[in-house]
């Protein structure tokens, strides 16, 4: 076991080196040995993929390494990141060497021969590497084709393919990290928050929170060892959001109203905090008598329209969320003095706006004018 772990460490170093100018010292024999090593590790991956303890040990080693290298959002991983990466470590090595301009002519020639021996299988492993690379190229082109011809970002973020993919990746990574130690995921997420573009990250979190629960699919082509249940991942995300008020505030601010309503409906634990934020935002607005509208006190405050949008969206959610929201609004209105006249309490005005909006909607739909709740 220990020797296996050492092999892993050494290969990780090798992988890191393969992108540096150090490879200028490599001759064809070195290239061959490196590829053989990768092949051996791929074999390890195949062999121990389903073997719980060994796999866990390997995974932990790789995670530690990754963290030490300052991973978690710091850019491409120099070494191996996780067990899954081990499964195509030969491809990873090949790609790095192929792209490395520092590799000498003789070494490069030999590399290309090894990677692309041509038709006619010589030995099983060589063919697999050639096929893997061909498949990678094919998939890359397919993605290119689909992405740049006829793809438009889906206005419903949770249905956008790029967003969904990122969300799936996040959930997968969370699950792995979570298996190692209990409090790891939270720290992981926090470090991601600090390092990654935040806007995109928030959107991905929202989409991840809306992923449907996966049923066991027999044709899952990724490793069957990882039981992908977004349920667990979602819980971790919700917990983290609730524990980081700054993040959650940004979350609620940056994302569109409809998306937030969906997320809050799905994860009721978030609704009190969301409502709390909305009330805070509302309280920051004051009434401008001259203009006859509610305006922000400071430039970064949430304007009336946005506040109204969010409440409107929430009121279209199914109960119990809708009821909670209305109750909250009524309570605020009461606390403010229970005015019916506009211009005195923002809560009164919001309720009035929401009701009239609902009334107009019912008229348009040809429904009766009776107002049940709103």
């Amino acid at each position: 076991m220990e020797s296996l772990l050492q092999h892993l460490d050494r290969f990780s170093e090798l992988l890191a080196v393969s992108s540096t100018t150090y490879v200028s010292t490599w001759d064809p024999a070195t290239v061959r040995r490196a590829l053989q090593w990768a092949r051996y590790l791929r074999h390890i991956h195949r062999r121990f993929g389903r073997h719980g303890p060994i796999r866990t040990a390997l995974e932990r080693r790789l995670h530690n390494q990754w963290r030490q290298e300052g991973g978690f959002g710091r850019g491409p991983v120099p070494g191996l990141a996780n067990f899954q990466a081990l499964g195509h470590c030969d491809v990873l090595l090949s790609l790095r060497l192929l792209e490395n301009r520092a590799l000498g002519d003789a070494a490069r020639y030999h590399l290309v021969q090894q990677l692309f021996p041509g038709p006619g299988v010589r030995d099983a492993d060589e063919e697999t590497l050639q096929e893997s690379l061909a498949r990678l190229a094919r998939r890359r082109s397919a993605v290119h084709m689909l992405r740049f011809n006829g793809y438009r970002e889906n206005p419903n973020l949770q249905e956008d393919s790029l967003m969904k993919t990122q969300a799936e990746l996040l959930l997968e990574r969370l699950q792995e990290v979570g298996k190692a130690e209990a409090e790891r995921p939270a720290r992981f997420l926090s470090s991601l928050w600090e390092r990654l573009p935040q806007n995109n990250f928030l959107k991905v979190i929202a989409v991840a929170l809306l992923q449907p629960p996966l049923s066991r699919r027999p044709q899952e082509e990724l490793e069957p060892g990882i039981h992908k249940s977004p349920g667990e991942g979602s819980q971790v995300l919700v917990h983290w959001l609730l524990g980081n008020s700054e993040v959650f505030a940004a979350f609620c601010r940056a994302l569109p109203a409809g998306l937030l309503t969906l997320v809050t409906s799905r994860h009721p634990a978030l609704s009190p905090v969301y409502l709390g934020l909305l009330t805070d935002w509302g309280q920051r607005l004051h009434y401008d008598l001259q203009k006859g509208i509610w305006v922000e006190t400071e430039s970064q405050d949430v304007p009336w329209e946005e506040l109204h949008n969010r409440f409107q969206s929430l009121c279209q959610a199914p109960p119990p969320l809708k009821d909670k929201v209305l109750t909250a609004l009524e309570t605020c209105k009461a606390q403010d003095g229970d005015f019916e006249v506009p211009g005195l309490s923002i809560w009164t005005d919001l309720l009035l706006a929401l009701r009239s909006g609902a009334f107009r909607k019912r008229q348009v739909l040809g429904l009766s004018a009776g107002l049940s709740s709103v």
Partner: protein
Amino acid sequence: MAQDSVDLSCDYQFWMQKLSVWDQASTLETQQDTCLHVAQFQEFLRKMYEALKEMDSNTVIERFPTIGQLLAKACWNPFILAYDESQKILIWCLCCLINKEPQNSGQSKLNSWIQGVLSHILSALRFDKEVALFTQGLGYAPIDYYPGLLKNMVLSLASELRENHLNGFNTQRRKKISLPMSAVVCLWLRHLPSLEKAMLHLFEKLISSERNCLRRIECFIKDSSLPQAACHPAIFRVVDEMFRCALLETDGALEIIATIQVFTQCFVEALEKASKQLRFALKTYFPYTSPSLAMVLLQDPQDIPRGHWLQTLKHISELLREAVEDQTHGSCGGPFESWFLFIHFGGWAEMVAEQLLMSAAEPPTALLWLLAFYYGPRDGRQQRAQTMMAYVMATCRHGDLQPCGQRRSPVPTEVARDETLPAHSPAKRRPFFPKVI
């Protein structure tokens, strides 16, 4: 050999020109043209590789001075790279150009350039910076997420196509990629959920319309393109299976039977129009019945001269009775399968009823059996015999009743007369005892 090389030179010129026109295949026309030619181009590449691998790098350049350009143009066309093994063969060709020991700067530059192209073929796509940073930040390489991304993109595209296809109008949302029928069939053949969703959508439409006349059912069915697609046996079987389930779930609802009958009509029409290539053996569509029975039932009742009706119906009755009462054919699924097959073709049951009512003579047992079977497939022998007796009494008593139904209406009796089907009619749930009695 000499001839081959002449051919290759000709082809070379042809493809060089084509590739120049296609460029990066960014317009609809170039994309379509590329797709039409990818297979042939791959064959050309194979031939090129066979020729190139015998030469060393310098000879290659002498023989085909512009080979670099040709290969590069191909590599910048994603439709070519995505097709089958083209990317592999292109890589092999490029490898033939690499100089093992470059003697001068020209050769070094060539090596360097080839490396660039190889990297390009395998490199990560430039997505939005944010996405790239995200995936890298999580420790994922493209090889990790391409499969998932492709799956999501294809599913999203498939559902969009399905929506556009079923809605039948252009949504202004985005550049619509419309597929020809063959492509839709391909999609349904490869992705079962797409086909199932198309069927479910059809069911939804049928359920949600308040009053379904047969004409409207026919419209819905034709719009769905399912009858046409069902010319392919695999699709027919799935569709039939869903009808079977629907029938069982609703305990033989008349609405489902009507739908099945209209569908079968449209299907038979489509089958006749389909090119000879698509003709499959009957057994592939109806594996649980004897080919002779299927063949007889598939006939258009209209094509049969009135004088031969009795004969044909007796024949059908015999075949069905044989299938139903013969216990040795274990695999045939018993009476239900035979009945299920029979109800596909509504014209026959109607013909039976008409014959029974119109002819003054003693009703033939075969016809009585057929009618009794149609309305009571689960009846035991005795029960059926009683039913048949009841029919005899009925036809004797009401011999002067008007025959039911218009010519092609597949749904028997009262329902056929006014050509409307109420959406919910619990009284008509089971196909037992026609209103005539």
